[in-house]
Structures are given as C-alpha cells and as structure tokens.
C-alpha cells in the first residue's frame, strides 16, 4: 500500500516524500479505520483526505468551519485539474446550492460547512451516496475546551450515525490530551486509531520584547523589518490596525512590498493578496488571524505578533507558518502592558450575558403563554434581545439538550426551564473562566524567564525537543548576528508598456 500511496503523491502533487505523519494517517484511513490525526500546522493535513478522494471510488465529505479556506482549497484543486470537487456553504447563492445538492454524486470530494449539515434535505441526499470517508477538519471545535468551540460540531455524531457510520477521520493542528479525549467521546465514542505528532518545531526561535507604547512598538517593528529582510507575517487583533500599520510600513520602507489582509475584504481581493505573497510580489503581510490557513509558503522567515492571540494554541499555529522549508526562522512578540485589555474584552463579547439569557427566556415564555409555540427565527429574536448569532446557536443547542426545544417547538415546564437557567449560567461562567485561564497561560509565557520552548509546549506534549539553531531570548540567544539573505522581491516593471509586453511575451 505504501508504494501505491507514494505513487499517488507523486502523480497528484508532484512530491516524492510524505511529510511527517501523512503516510501513517493515510494507511489507517485506507484500511477504513476511524482515525484521529493531530498534525502541527504546515504539514499538509489536506493530503490525508484528498489522496483517498483521488484514489478510491465513493465520496469524501469534509466538514470544515473555515468557509474561506474551503473556497481556497476548491479553487486550488480545480487549478490543479481536479474538477470533481465542490463546497457547500453560505457563500453560495440559492441556485448554486441547488445545483450542487442535486448532483452530489458527480463530486468525489465535497466540503460542507457544519451549518449546512443541519439541513434535512441535504442529509437525505447524502444518504444516497457511497461515502468512503467522513472528515471532521479542525476537530478541536467539538470540544468546549478547544481553542474554538462550535456548537454545530456537537451534532456531528448524529450525522455520522444517520449516514450509516462511514469511516471517520478527525483532524486538528492543536489538541491537548484533554481535547483529544473529548473529540473521541463527542464523535460518538468511536474507537479511533490515534496519530499524534509533536507541535514543537525545532527551527523556530522565540523572542519577546516589551515596549512602552504604540510608538515604541512601531519603531521596534520597523527596525526589525530592516534587519530581517525576508518574507514576513505580522499578526494583529483588529482589522483597522492591520490596515494602518501596513500603510505605516509602506511609508517608512517603500522598497518592501507590503499589503494587509483580513476577513473584511472581498473574496476576490483576499485571493489576489494571498497569491501575490506566494508569488513573491509581496514581502510583508499585515493581517488578522484570518490569514495563513491554506497558505503554503515555504520560506516565511519572520512572524511578528503586534498583538497576541487569546491562547497558546492559536499562537503556536500562527508561528507555525514560519520556516516550513526547515530553515531557521524567528517569532517576535511585541507587547505593552496595556495590550492585555483587548483579549479580555473580546472574551466577554464572545459569550452571552446572563441578563440577555434571562431576557430571552422571558420572551420565549411570553410566546408560549400566548399560544405561540413555534420557535422564533433568529432575526425575530434580535429585534428584542441583543444577542449574537453564535450566541443564539449556542443557546439553541443547549435548549434542545434540555428538551426546551423539540422539533422547532417550544415546550414549557417550569422546573426544566428553571434548571436550564441555572445550568446555563454555570456553563457560561465555566467557559469564560476557561478562556481567561487560557489567556493567563499566554500571559505567563510572555513573562516567563525560563526557556520559552519548554513553557510554550508544556501542556501539549511530554517532552520538548531542543532547538536546531537559536532557541529563545531567555536562553541567551539574540538576533544581533542574524544574517540577512537578501531575497529578490519582484519589482514592478518600469511602466505599463513594459508590463504588458512581459505579460503577453512580446
């Protein structure tokens, strides 16, 4: 089987060798075993389900919460000549959705958003297929202890059962042992073959620098960019900051091609920026966490965190975009004490307020009393109660679990409603606490004076491997003697005449 897989890798991707873990996971999948794969970012998780789709008959269904990543992958596969692939998500208009749903059997690989799987019609269509593999991508989303929790994911076990238990492949880049157990349990206590790979990358060095204020942060960042002139990603927690710092860099360093990227941009533009970075037309990307997934650029040398994410998992994932070619690369965190306000604020925004929950339940109670037991639509709720859509879906799932909602009907029982309110309060409180603990761990890492490698990976793996080059500032390493290998950034042609001639080879 190994040679078959290797030949297929060569044929479809042009690679001679599998990256860490790919072969082991593929072998398990090809034997139709339920499989859990924890592979660090940048090792090409998608190969683990794309190859089976190319090689075998029957459909591969991939559930993924990252809609734009889904779109990118479909585009990239089509560009490679693999056309029997489609994505079903809210980006599609009604007609296209119908078109895909009606012709499911004509695709070998089908990406689906978790929301779409709530649709009974789609499920009934899926039941008519020969599903060879059901993939749960970003599987940590199923666990409320994962870095991102999606209530939609909790229903996947039921979907798998309805689809008559096809082999399941759960994939994630980051999962503590706690989260791994949760994944297995919440996917219906499946017996899974586990393939867990260490997340620490030996060729990345870690540096943290405190600054007094934003001005000092900008100056430090610019000095660093001058020193390490190489493909760089700079992470921000806000779209506006990503845009304004990109402008600042352009003004101060006009020779360094720099652009911004965030989820608020149009799809067409996001793809252009991504491709410019891959093609070497851009040297620096200022972005939010939206950038990076599915961007397989090998020679990113420097990751700067202008703002830190809320947890170490996200941080590890973002830093992991550096040095995929194995060459020495650097992570630099710039922080000032005021920065810790932002994530705390974001965490509080993420979860529903107790008062909103009470208001919601009162509103629902009044509906029931007035004889309206149909579950109101989210838009209707929003007119009365300030509540986000993710928050609403979270509550809806909890209400179904507590038999307050059954088949879109509200069911009133004084005791269950009372219990529900108490439990939900505890649940929201726990979740908030958990997130703050995660943030605290990130903070501890920033302030630690021992080896940053050891602390960063402590919760994820038993042993941490030594660095292949520089380790971290706390181990006495510096960037003073970093040697700049000048990369040739594609310069703009002199003018449109030359550019047009170049494009059309005249």
């Amino acid at each position, binding site marked *: 089987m190994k040679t078959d897989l290797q030949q297929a890798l060569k044929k479809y991707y042009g690679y001679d060798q599998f990256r860490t873990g790919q072969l082991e996971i593929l072998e398990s999948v090809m034997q139709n075993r339920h499989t859990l794969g924890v592979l660090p970012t940048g090792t090409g998780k998608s190969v683990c389900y794309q190859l089976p789709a190319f090689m075998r008959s029957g459909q591969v269904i991939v559930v993924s919460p990252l809609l734009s990543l889904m779109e990118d992958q479909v585009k990239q596969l089509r560009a490679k000549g693999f056309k029997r692939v489609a994505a079903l998500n809210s980006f599609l208009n009604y007609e296209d959705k119908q078109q895909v749903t009606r012709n499911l059997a004509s695709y070998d690989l089908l990406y689906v958003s978790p929301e779409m799987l709530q649709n009974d019609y789609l499920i009934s269509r899926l039941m008519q297929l020969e599903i060879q593999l059901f993939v749960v991508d970003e599987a940590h989303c199923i666990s409320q202890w994962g870095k991102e929790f999606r209530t939609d994911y909790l229903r996947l076990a039921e979907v798998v059962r309805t689809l008559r238990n096809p082999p399941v492949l759960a994939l994630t880049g980051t999962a503590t042992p706690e989260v791994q157990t949760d994944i297995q349990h919440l996917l219906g206590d499946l017996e899974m073959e586990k393939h867990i790979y260490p997340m620490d990358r030996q060729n990345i060095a870690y540096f943290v620098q405190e600054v007094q204020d934003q001005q000092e942060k900008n100056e430090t960042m610019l000095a660093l960019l001058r020193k390490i002139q190489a493909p760089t990603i700079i992470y921000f927690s806000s779209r506006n900051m990503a845009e304004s710092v990109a402008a600042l860099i352009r003004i101060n360093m006009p020779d360094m091609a720099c*652009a911004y990227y965030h989820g608020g*941009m149009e799809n067409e533009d996001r793809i*252009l920026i991504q*491709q*410019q970075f891959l*093609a070497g037309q851009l040297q620096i990307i200022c972005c939010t966490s939206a950038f990076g997934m599915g961007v397989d650029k090998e020679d990113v040398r420097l990751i700067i965190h202008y703002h830190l994410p809320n947890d170490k998992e996200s941080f590890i994932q973002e830093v992991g975009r550096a040095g995929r070619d194995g060459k020495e690369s650097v992570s630099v965190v710039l922080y000032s004490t005021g920065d810790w306000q932002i994530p705390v604020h974001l965490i509080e925004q993420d979860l529903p307020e107790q008062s909103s929950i009470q208001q919601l339940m009162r509103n629902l109670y009044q509906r029931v009393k007035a004889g309206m037991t149909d579950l109101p639509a989210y838009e209707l709720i929003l007119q009365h109660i300030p509540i986000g859509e993710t928050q609403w879906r979270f509550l809806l799932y909890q209400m179904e679990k507590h038999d307050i909602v059954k088949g879109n009907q509200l069911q009133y029982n004084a005791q269950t409603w009372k219990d529900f309110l108490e439990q939900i309060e505890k649940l929201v409180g726990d979740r908030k606490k958990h997130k703050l603990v995660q943030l605290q761990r990130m903070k501890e890492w920033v302030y630690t004076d021992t080896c940053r490698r050891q602390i960063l990976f402590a919760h994820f793996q038993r042993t941490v491997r030594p660095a292949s080059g520089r380790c971290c500032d706390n181990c006495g390493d510096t960037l003073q003697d970093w040697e700049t290998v000048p990369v040739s950034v594609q310069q703009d042609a002199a003018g449109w005449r030359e550019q*047009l001639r170049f*494009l*059309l080879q*005249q």
Partner: protein
Amino acid sequence: MLLASIILHAVQPIRNERSTASIYHLLQGKRSAQTLQDAHMYGLTNLFGIYPKLSRELFDQLAQDLLENKIQVTETPIPYFDGMAYQSQTDTFLYRLLLLLQMLSNQANGEKHYIPVTDQAQVQYWVKQLYRQKQLQLGHWRSCLYEELYGLLEKLPEMQAGLFVDRISGYQHIGLTAAQLAVKYNLQVVDVPLYQTSTIHYFLDQVRANKSLFPYLGTLVEQPKQQSHTITSTAHKTRMMLERGLTLDQIAAARGLTENTIKDHIVEMTWLEGRRLASRFIGEADAAVIMDCAEKTGTNKLKQIHATLNGKYDYFQIRMALALRNEQEVET
C-alpha cells in the same frame, strides 16, 4: 476625487427637482423607469450604471458632505463614459478580457495551473470555448491582442493605462487589488473602479466605431440580445400587450400591476423610443402646449407645470410630453 466631481456634476442639472438618491440610482444603474427617465431628462445618460457596486452608505455620506460644503474637493476631470450604451456589457467584456489575458500569458509559458481571476461560470465557459477552438492560433491571438490593446492604451491618459495593466494577472505575476492600485496611483479607493469602467467604455466605443481595426477585441463583445435600448423587461411586456390593443386597465388587471406602473412603462418607452406609442395618450398639440410651458417656466417639475396650466392636463400627460421633448431635441 472623481466620485465627488461626478456627484457635483450630476447635481447641477437635477437642481432641486430630484433627491440626491436619484443620483445614486443613476450611478448604480437601477433599472427602473424613473431612473432611466432621469438619465434622459437631465442629460446624464453617459453616467447611467457606471458604478454598480457603489455602496449606498458611502454615497449618502459623501453627497451630504459635498452639498453641505463640509468637504472641499479639487475638481477632477471626468473621463469618458457612455453608461447608457455600454453598462450592460461592461462586466462581461472586462472579465472575458482579464481571464483571456491570464490564460494567454500562462499558456505562453506552459503553465496550466493557476487560479482564474473570476469565478463567473459563463465567463470561464466562454474562455474555455475560445481555447478549444483556437488552440493552434493562441500565439497569434496573443500578439494581435497585444497590438490592439497597446494602440488603445496609448490614447488614454498614462494613469488610466497603468491602472488597467496593473490589474491583469498572468504568468507568475498577480494583478493588484483596488486598494493597492489606489496607493500606487495616489487615488481614493472608491475612484479606482470608476477609472476602470471608463477604460472599458472607451475600449467598447472604439471597437464599435472601428470594427475592422479591432477584430480580436471585437470577438469579446457580447452581442446584446434584443435591440431595444435598455428597456426594462417588464416594460417590454407592457408594450407587447399595448400592441395587441389592450387598454391600460386591462393590462394592469392582466399583469396584476397598478395602472400607475403601466403608465411608468409607457413613459419609459417614450423616453427611449419616441412617438411610437405616445399618440394614443397625448395629441401633438397638447404636447406642444406642455413643452412650451416647461420651457417658459424653466422647470421640469410636474407639480409646477400642472398648476401653471390650471390643471388642464394630468400628470401622466405632462410626463409623456416631457418624454417627447427629449425626442425632439434628438431630432433637431
């Protein structure tokens, strides 16, 4: 700022007669009888539909700031536009051209794998067909398209030519986004699509006027399906029924529309097609009286004309006469 200059230009003829929202609908290309009439009545047909993606919020804010003199803008010359003639073809032509250039550039370098610059299935299909049919002549296509484009771009201002070429994606070179183009050419982001549209309108116009000079670009032009000048399809249905001899109330009942809507259709068609239908609804002498009044009082306001003529004509008749006046201007 170009958008600001366009708004200020459009405000002048409209004066106090129509709301600024009507300018938004005009630029955005709303296919309603009212918007088409506005375009004709105020001599703004060239601006019709030149900015389909214009955001309402942005427009409202800018228009308000301009009219209340909150911001001063240096006047920017308005480049060539002919929205009424080309707005329905602009997008298709632009994306066919961009995708074709991307394909030709990659094909010349033996590159088969690239992400197409547009998702539009029809455009992709069109380019694919062309690829199949002309497979052996692609090198020829490349040099001829180059010649045609070069000649056209030479006649445009340098900045506009640059904006166009920098947007093209090809072999190992990805085109710039609107935001990047704005930085490079020191423009406001909102102005970038306007210049691009102007370029395409210019191309389309040149291609139409000199077919023999641009045989390759000519094949990219989508042939309009029917020769009725941008008449809305619902108005078209009304015309068919009128031609079969149905009365206004019969048409309204049959189509489940109000009589006023049917009247809108008739006025719209009169703007675009002239006298053909009009004689059934207003005599030439009556029309002349109304046109005369409009000219003397210097207004196009229905209410004022109605009052000046002591309510002798109803609003429908006045609108028909004004629509006919447009035709007379064209004839002389």
